[in-house]
């Protein structure tokens, strides 16, 4: 039994490395303003420990071009930035390879920098994987996303209306309760002035108050409705 388990685990362990691959992550899109700088991040996941020969490569393909050019390479612990191409003097390596971060910083953006940046990371002996691309979009003014302001206006106005209606009904409820409390206290004072009675009659005021209260409320309500009755009566 034990030998069978040992054999199975050895077979599994030898099979596992063939299914692993390196996974490279970058963003999907980056938006930036003309003249500003943008940080393109690249990191990777690998089953192996970080090797000393880890490499990062960035390449750039303009929007209308067919092929890409290489703009950055990190190998053997040294970064090599572009010193001849479109990004000379504008590119800086801001990543930390010890933390699997191979990000670059591009300064002073221009409309010609629109395009696709591809990051390829390798962690020997884990070298099988796909590079990952991030699109750079350069604007002169960052556009408002569709629907953000619409939703904000609709939500705030509806919330305000619901709040006002809730406050109106709350005020009506509180006013009705205050009228109830006032009439209850008046009736109880009236009963006390008449003198002390038996216990059964003491329970009387509670029932009295509710009966009296309902008629008082009805009277008050119909009074309010009839008060403004100076205009024509239509249906």
């Amino acid at each position: 039994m034990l030998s069978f388990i040992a054999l199975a685990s050895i077979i599994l362990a030898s099979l596992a490395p063939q299914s692993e691959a390196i996974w490279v992550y970058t963003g999907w899109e980056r938006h930036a303003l003309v003249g500003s700088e943008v940080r393109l991040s690249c990191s990777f996941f690998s089953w192996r420990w970080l090797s000393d020969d880890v490499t990062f490569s960035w390449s750039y393909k303009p929007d209308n071009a067919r092929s890409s050019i290489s703009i950055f390479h990190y190998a053997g612990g040294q970064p090599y930035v572009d010193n001849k191409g479109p990004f000379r003097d504008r590119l800086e390596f801001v990543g930390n390879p010890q933390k699997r971060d191979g990000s670059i910083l591009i300064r002073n953006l221009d409309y010609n920098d629109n395009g696709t940046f591809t990051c390829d990371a390798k962690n020997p002996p884990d070298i099988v994987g796909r590079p990952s691309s991030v699109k750079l979009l350069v604007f002169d003014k960052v556009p408002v996303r569709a629907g953000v302001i619409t939703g904000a206006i609709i939500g705030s106005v509806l919330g305000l209306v619901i709040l006002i209606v809730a406050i109106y009904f709350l005020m009506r409820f509180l006013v009705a309760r205050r009228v109830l409390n006032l009439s209850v206290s008046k009736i109880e004072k009236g009963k006390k002035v008449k003198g002390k009675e038996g216990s059964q009659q003491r329970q009387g005021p509670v029932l009295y108050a509710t009966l009296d209260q309902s008629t008082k409320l009805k009277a008050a309500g119909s009074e309010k409705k009839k008060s403004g009755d100076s205009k024509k009566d239509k249906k």
Partner: protein
Amino acid sequence: MLFLLLGIVLLHIAALVLLFVSTIVNTWVETSGSSADLWLNCSTTNGGSHCDPANTSEWIQAVQATMILSVIFSVISLFLFFCQLFTLQKGGRFFFTGIFQILASLFVMSGAIIYTVKNADWVPESASYGYAYILAWVAFPLALISGCIYVILRKRE
């Protein structure tokens, strides 16, 4: 009289239909071969029509929001009218109905005004106003009159 009630409901529904059409149909401005706003820019080239999403500036989004709010308030007002018709006491006024309908008319007015003032930012000079824009302007006084009638109205019987 029943005819009066029917007339008022018809006026309300007419204003509501105008609001719906004006909000949904994408023809606030028209040029030859294309129409635009509030939601799509559609152009018909020889072949078929092709639609892009409308400009996403803040002012178009404000107009979209006010038109949607006016439709919502008008629908709520119609619903409240039928509620209050059966629950109001004798001599009562349709306050809530009238208030919501007047709010709807105010929102349509502000949406149409914002569009009129600010559309030069994204609309080319050669474009002319389409029928959805005119319907929005027509819906505003209809809704306002309808709301005022509700405020003045009293329930009999």
